[in-house]
C-alpha cells in the first residue's frame, strides 16, 4: 500500500475512487462469504442427544474399536515447566495419556505394577530393586532402560541441569534417593538416605520418559512414553493429538486401547468449553463447571472423579481474632456444608469435614457429615468473649471462588463474625499464598490427600510445618513425626490418623467447605468411562474408553 501511495502520488479524487472500489470489492467478498455460510447448514457438529443411558453403565456392551475421542481442556499446555514430572492443570491429558509410572495406585494405596514386574524394598527399607517389563519400549520403538527412569529422579533433584525452572512437590522424596544403579538392561536399584514410609507415593507419580528425547519434549515436539496412546503433535492454543499405541504393553487379550485417536482441543475458558460440549463438538470435558454439568447429571453424562483434596477456608492462627481455638471452632461449625454441596456444587460431591478420600487409610466415615451447628458456634464465641474492632479479611481467588466466599461471609455473619471479602486475581493470590501472607481468612483448595496421609501433611501448604496458617502445636508435630516412621497402612499409623482427625475438629486451623473432586462431562457416544486411577491425578483409564456409532 505504501509503495503504491509513493508511486502514484495519490490525489483526493483517486483516493475517493479507490474507496469506492474497495467497497465494491468488499461487497463481492461478502456475497461469497454469505454463500459459504449458508452451505454450512449441512456441516453441523454431531448434535448432543438426550442420552438417557449412562456412559459408564453401558460399558458392559462389547467395546467397539476405532474412532476419535475429542476432549477439551482450558488453557495451553506447558512442556518446559517440568512436565511430565510436575502436575499442572493445563497438562492433565498429557500427564495421563502418553506417559506411565513404574507403579500406580489404582483404587487404594496398595501399589500395582505398571512398567515393572518386580518392585521390592529391602527389609530395612533403605533400598529398592525394580525390574522393568521385558521388551518394554517407548512409542518410538526404543527400549526403556533404567537410565530413562533415573532421569526423572535427577530432574526433580536438579531441574536447572535439564534447563527447567520449576519446583517439584515430590522433591523432598526425590532427595531421599542417594544412589541409583542399573544392574542390567531391566533391573535397577535405588538407595535411600533413610527408610521413608511414603516412597511409593514418589514412584507412583514418577512418569518414565526417554532421556534422549527430552529436549524435544521440552519444545513440545515429541513426548516419548509407554502409555496407551502416543503423542503426535501439539499446536499451541489449538490442540494436542494422540494416536493409539498398537504395541502397548497393557493391551491384554482384547487389544486395548480401543480408540484410534484422541484429540484434545484447547479452549480459552470453561464457558467456551461448555458451549462446545453442548454443540456436540466435544466428547469429554475433564473438570466441568458444576452449573454446566448439572444439566447432564440426570442424563448419565457426568462422572465424578475420586476426591483428591479439600476446598477449604484457611485461618491465620496468629491473627488476634483467631488465636482462641474456640473462635476457630465456632467458624468451623458456622459453615453450612450442605448448602455448599447442594447450591454451589449443584449436588456434585458429598458433605464432609475431612480431607481424606475413601481410599485413604485416614478416612473416617464419621467425618462425612456437616458438622454444622450455628447455635453452638455462637455459644463458643460468647464463651471466648469474641469481639471485633474490624472485619476479618477473607481473601478469595476471583472469579472461581467468589460464590464460595460470599456463602462463607453469609455463614460467618450469621454467628456475628464480620468478614470483608478480598477478591484476588489467581496470580496475585498464589503469590500471597507462597509468602504465607494472608492475615485472616482465605478460600482455596489443596490436593494430595489421596496419597499416603503423611505426604499430604508434609507437602501441602495448609498442613506442612511451617504452614500458611502458622499452626504448629506440639501435639500436631508429634503426629507428623510419628507418621514419618510408620507404614501408612499399619494399625499404628491409623492411631495417629485418628488423633489427627480429632485435632482437626478440636483445634482447627482450616475450615472444610467441600471435597475437591473433578466433575467430568462425557459425550453421549462415549462408553467405558468411569474407571479412575488414584495416581496420577485421578486419571480416567483412557485405554478402556470407546465410542459407539
Amino acid at each position, binding site marked *: 500500500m505504501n509503495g503504491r501511495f509513493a508511486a502514484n502520488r495519490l490525489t483526493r479524487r483517486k483516493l475517493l475512487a479507490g474507496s469506492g472500489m474497495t467497497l465494491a470489492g468488499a461487497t463481492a467478498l*461478502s456475497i461469497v*462469504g454469505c454463500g459459504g*455460510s449458508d452451505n454450512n447448514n449441512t*456441516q*453441523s457438529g454431531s448434535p448432543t442427544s438426550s442420552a438417557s443411558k449412562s456412559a459408564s453403565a453401558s460399558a458392559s456392551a462389547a467395546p467397539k474399536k476405532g474412532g476419535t475421542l475429542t476432549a477439551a481442556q482450558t488453557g495451553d499446555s506447558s512442556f*518446559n515447566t517440568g512436565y511430565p514430572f510436575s502436575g499442572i492443570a493445563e497438562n492433565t491429558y498429557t500427564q495421563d495419556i502418553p506417559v506411565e509410572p513404574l507403579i500406580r495406585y489404582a483404587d487404594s494405596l496398595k501399589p500395582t505394577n505398571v512398567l515393572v514386574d518386580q518392585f521390592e524394598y529391602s527389609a530395612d527399607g533403605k533400598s529398592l530393586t525394580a525390574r522393568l517389563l521385558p521388551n518394554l519400549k517407548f512409542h518410538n520403538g526404543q527400549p526403556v532402560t533404567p537410565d530413562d527412569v533415573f532421569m526423572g529422579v535427577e530432574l526433580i533433584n536438579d531441574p536447572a541441569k535439564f534447563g527447567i525452572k520449576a*519446583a517439584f512437590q515430590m522433591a523432598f522424596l526425590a532427595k531421599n534417593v542417594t544412589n541409583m544403579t542399573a544392574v542390567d538392561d531391566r533391573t535397577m536399584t535405588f538407595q535411600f538416605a533413610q527408610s521413608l514410609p511414603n516412597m511409593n507415593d514418589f514412584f507412583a507419580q514418577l512418569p518414565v520418559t526417554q532421556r534422549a528425547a527430552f529436549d524435544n519434549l521440552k519444545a513440545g515436539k515429541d513426548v516419548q512414553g509407554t502409555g496407551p496412546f502416543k503423542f503426535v503433535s501439539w499446536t499451541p492454543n489449538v490442540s494436542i493429538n494422540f494416536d493409539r499405541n498398537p504395541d502397548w504393553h497393557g493391551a491384554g487379550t482384547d487389544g486395548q486401547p480401543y480408540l484410534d485417536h484422541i484429540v484434545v482441543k484447547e479452549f480459552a475458558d470453561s464457558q467456551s468449553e461448555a458451549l462446545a460440549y453442548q454443540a456436540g463438538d466435544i466428547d469429554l470435558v475433564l473438570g466441568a463447571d458444576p452449573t454446566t454439568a448439572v444439566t447432564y447429571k440426570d442424563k448419565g453424562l457426568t462422572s465424578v472423579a475420586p476426591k483428591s483434596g479439600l476446598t477449604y477456608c484457611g485461618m491465620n492462627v496468629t491473627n488476634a481474632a483467631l488465636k482462641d481455638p474456640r473462635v476457630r471452632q465456632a467458624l468451623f461449625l458456622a459453615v453450612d456444608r450442605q448448602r455448599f454441596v447442594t447450591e454451589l456444587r449443584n449436588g456434585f460431591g458429598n458433605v464432609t469435614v475431612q480431607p481424606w478420600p475413601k481410599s485413604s487409610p485416614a478416612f473416617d466415615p464419621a467425618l462425612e457429615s456437616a458438622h454444622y451447628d450455628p447455635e453452638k458456634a455462637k455459644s463458643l464465641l460468647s464463651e471466648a468473649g469474641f469481639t471485633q474492632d474490624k472485619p476479618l479479611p477473607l481473601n478469595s481467588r476471583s472469579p472461581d471462588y467468589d460464590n464460595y466466599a460470599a456463602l462463607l461471609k453469609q455463614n460467618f455473619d450469621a454467628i456475628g463474625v464480620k468478614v470483608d471479602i478480598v477478591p484476588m486475581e489467581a496470580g496475585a*493470590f498464589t503469590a500471597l499464598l507462597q509468602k504465607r501472607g494472608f492475615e485472616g481468612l482465605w478460600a482455596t483448595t489443596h490436593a494430595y490427600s489421596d496419597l499416603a496421609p503423611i505426604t499430604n501433611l508434609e507437602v501441602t501448604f495448609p498442613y506442612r510445618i511451617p504452614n500458611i496458617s502458622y499452626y504448629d502445636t506440639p501435639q500436631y508435630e508429634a503426629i507428623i513425626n510419628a507418621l514419618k516412621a510408620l507404614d501408612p497402612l499399619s494399625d499404628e499409623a491409623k492411631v495417629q490418623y485418628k488423633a489427627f482427625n480429632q485435632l482437626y475438629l478440636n483445634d482447627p486451623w482450616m475450615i472444610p467447605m467441600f471435597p475437591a473432586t473433578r466433575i467430568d462431562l462425557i459425550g453421549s457416544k462415549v462408553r467405558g468411562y468411569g474407571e479412575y486411577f488414584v495416581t496420577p491425578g485421578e486419571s480416567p483409564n483412557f485405554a478402556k474408553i470407546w465410542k459407539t456409532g
Partner: protein
Amino acid sequence: MAGYIVGRVLQAIPVLFLASIAVFLVLRLVPGDPATRLAGQDATPAQVQEIRKELGLTDPLPVQYGRWLDDLAHGNLGTSLSSGLPVSHLLALSFPPTLELAVASYIIALLIGIPLGVLAGARPRGAWDWVLSVYSVFALGVPHFMSGILLLLVFTVWLHWLPVGGQVAFTNSPLESIKYLALPSLALGAGVAAVLARYTRTALADVMDMDFIRTARAKGLEPRVVVIRHALRNALVPVITISALQIGGLLAGAIVIEQVFTRPGLGRLIINAINTRDYLVIQSTLVIFVAIFVVVNLLADIAYGLADPRVRRS
C-alpha cells in the same frame, strides 16, 4: 506531502518507545510473576526466589528493561517461559487468525455500515434512519462477548449450522475458513458497522443540505445518482478516516472475541500469557498491538492529508 509523512513517522517513534516502557512497568506492578507460577502453589518462598533469580527477575528494573530492548533491537523476542517456544514462533502462529478475523470483521462492518448510513443519511428521519437508530442501540449497547455468546447459542448449539470454535487458515481452505470466521467476525464487525453507519449518515445528511446537491436535483438527476455520485463522494472523506481508526478497535475487540470463539490468535495468546505471567510474550504482543495502532493511525493521518489539502498544510 513528503514532509508531512516524515513528520508523522517521527512522531510515532516516541509513542512506541513510551508504550514499551508502560507495558514493561505495568506488568511489574501486577502482583505475582512468572516465578510464582513456575514454582507452583506449594513452593516455599526460597524456591520461588531461586527461580526468580534464574529468570533474571531480581535484577533492577532498568537492567531488565534494557535487556529486553536490546534483544528487541536485535530481532530477538525471547522465549516463552510457559511453552518454551520462541516468542516469534508463537506470534507467527497467532497473528494470521487475528488478521483474518480483523479483515473479515472490517468487511462486514463496511458492508453493513456504509449502505445503512447512506440509506439513513439520504432521507433523515425516514424509515432507514429509524432502522439505523435501533440497530445502533443494539450493536453498540450489547458487548462483543455477549453478542458472540448469543450467536454461538443460536447457530452452533441450537441449529448446529456452524462450528463452535477454532480456526482454519484461509489459505488452506477458504470455505472452511469462512465457516469458522462467520460468527466471530459478525460479533466483532456489528459494533464497528454501527459506528460507520452513524458517521456516514451524519456526513451524508450534512452534504445533502448543500447547494450543489440542490443544483444536482434541479438539473433533474435521479435521486440515486444524486446520492451516490454527488453526495456520497463528498461525505466519505471523514468516513474514511473513521474507518481506518476502527481497525485499531477491531484488534482490541479481537482479544475478547478470540476468547469466546476459541480462535488461536493474538488475543488468546495474550490472555494465556497474562494468566501465566509470561512476561516476554505479553510484552512483545502488546508492543505489536501498539505498533499496529500507531501504523493504522499514521496511515489514517496520511490518508486524511491526501484527501484534504488543508490538513497537510496545517
